[in-house]
């Protein structure tokens, strides 16, 4: 069932919210020991369900009535500590307030199940030197679920939650969504307030949903951003464009390239047109992103790095410390270049409704902590759109040679979030379903 169908069943009294939450708790009890998705469970599930029943009886409008949602452990949810999987916050007191996105979900009737793990401080990579064990991709034992919002993705993909909140600075929602066979949406920067979120780089950070479908993401986004969903969009006459220059700079694997070509052929058969998106400065997006992200992160965390360097794992520590080596004039240059690149990307939409490209160059690799500092770059196609601040979504499109999901990324104009989500829903419905992972963890 979709989120809307489930919420309607609960609001109509056909499904009890406590019974549904308990079903998910049972799945967490069964799967979390192997998959390590959930870092903490809310102690208030029965109370949340009781409040919900009262609101249903009162006739409140509850588009997410009883939907069990996991929240990335970098965002405040009242009653639970926010740790970002870091020793720095190992003894954090429970949050007294919700971050606005969580508050809006609760207001719409959602049940907050608990906190989902993530890469330490949402940066660096998977590590066995952080307080929480690394999450495992349910598509294969030992597979990397991506990051940083990996607990959120693993929880949804394995049925521990119906949906989850993630954070995205350079791909941290879209990458785990792609690797775990889900839809993951990065909204336009600034659409959803960030109070109560542990930051990485504030001019890039966003909060967004991960769910089974783009349609589910659209419902969650409409509530979190307080903007109405876009009416359904037809594929007939839809203009899509591939930023080939970006792909030439960081080529996808043959399997990923083939999956993109097959998806485009399917969409053309449904009446869409596919063109090339001009992006002459493609090679500069990632360089510009790097200087801005690392400078901002260093500015935020330099005092903690100076006072308690041992409170970070080496990946996080080095990711933050590299910002010390970026001179202020380099950041100033990157800030000016960013505006030029945003303008160039705007121009790419002159003849396109959306860009279409892979989310990542390849399917998920195996987790391997011995190569933590030399892993292939998984985010060359996601960071450019974080830099530009535009909305982007990953949806599943195929399985790779190892039977792990491949994701397709759709990118919209700045502020055009609801339309992009409607467009992604239409595209998702035209593409073949990849199914769900086999439950090897039970």
């Amino acid at each position, binding site marked *: 069932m979709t989120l809307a169908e489930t919420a309607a069943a609960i609001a109509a009294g056909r499904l009890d919210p406590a019974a549904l939450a308990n079903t998910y708790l049972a799945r967490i009890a069964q799967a979390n020991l192997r998959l390590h998705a959930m870092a903490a469970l809310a102690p208030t599930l029965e109370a949340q369900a009781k409040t919900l029943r009262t609101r249903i009886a009162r006739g409140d409008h509850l588009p997410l009535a009883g939907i069990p949602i996991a929240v990335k452990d970098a965002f405040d949810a009242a009653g639970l500590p926010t740790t970002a999987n870091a020793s720095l916050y190992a003894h954090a007191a429970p949050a007294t307030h919700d971050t606005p996105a969580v508050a809006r979900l609760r207001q719409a009737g959602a049940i907050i199940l608990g906190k989902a793990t993530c890469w330490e401080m949402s940066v660096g990579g998977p590590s066995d030197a952080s307080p929480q064990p690394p999450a495992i991709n349910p598509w294969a034992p030992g597979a990397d679920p991506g990051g940083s919002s990996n607990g959120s993705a693993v929880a949804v993909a394995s049925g521990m939650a119906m949906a989850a909140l993630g954070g995205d600075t350079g791909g941290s929602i879209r990458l785990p969504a792609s690797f775990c066979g889900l839809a993951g949406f990065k909204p336009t920067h600034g659409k959803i307030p960030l109070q109560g979120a542990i930051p990485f780089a504030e001019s890039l950070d966003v909060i967004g949903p991960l769910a089974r479908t783009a349609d589910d993401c659209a419902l969650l986004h409409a509530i979190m951003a307080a903007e109405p969903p876009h009416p359904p969009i037809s594929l007939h006459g839809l203009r899509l464009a591939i930023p080939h220059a970006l792909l030439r700079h960081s080529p996808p694997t043959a399997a990923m390239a083939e999956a993109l070509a097959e998806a485009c052929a399917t969409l053309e058969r449904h009446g869409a047109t596919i063109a090339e998106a001009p992006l002459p400065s493609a090679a500069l997006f990632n360089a510009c992103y790097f*200087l801005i992200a690392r400078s901002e992160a260093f500015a935020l965390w330099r005092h903690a790095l100076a006072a308690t360097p041992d409170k970070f794992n080496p990946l996080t520590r080095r990711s933050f410390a590299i910002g010390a080596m970026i001179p202020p004039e380099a950041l100033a240059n990157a800030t000016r270049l960013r505006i030029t690149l945003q303008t160039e990307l705007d121009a790419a939409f002159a003849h396109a409704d959306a860009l279409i490209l892979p989310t990542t160059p390849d399917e998920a690799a195996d987790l391997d902590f011995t190569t933590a500092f030399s892993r292939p770059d998984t985010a060359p196609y996601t960071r450019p759109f974080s830099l530009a601040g535009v909305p982007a979504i990953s949806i599943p499109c195929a399985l790779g040679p190892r039977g792990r999901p491949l994701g397709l990324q759709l990118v919209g104009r700045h502020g055009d979030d609801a339309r992009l989500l409607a467009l992604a829903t239409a595209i998702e419905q035209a593409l073949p379903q990849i199914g769900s992972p086999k439950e090897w963890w039970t």
Partner: protein
Amino acid sequence: MESPPTTDPTEPVRAALARAGITLPPEDIAFLTAQQEMLARTIEAVSKAAPRP
């Protein structure tokens, strides 16, 4: 005979961290030192492409 002056490749990293009051383990210094060339290329590419103020 005077020996040629030696340069410590870790020195720029140590100096940058020292300015921020940060002391990191030798493994971190070695890692950051190895990133200097990549970082210099990145800074140069962005500097060349950025519009003048």
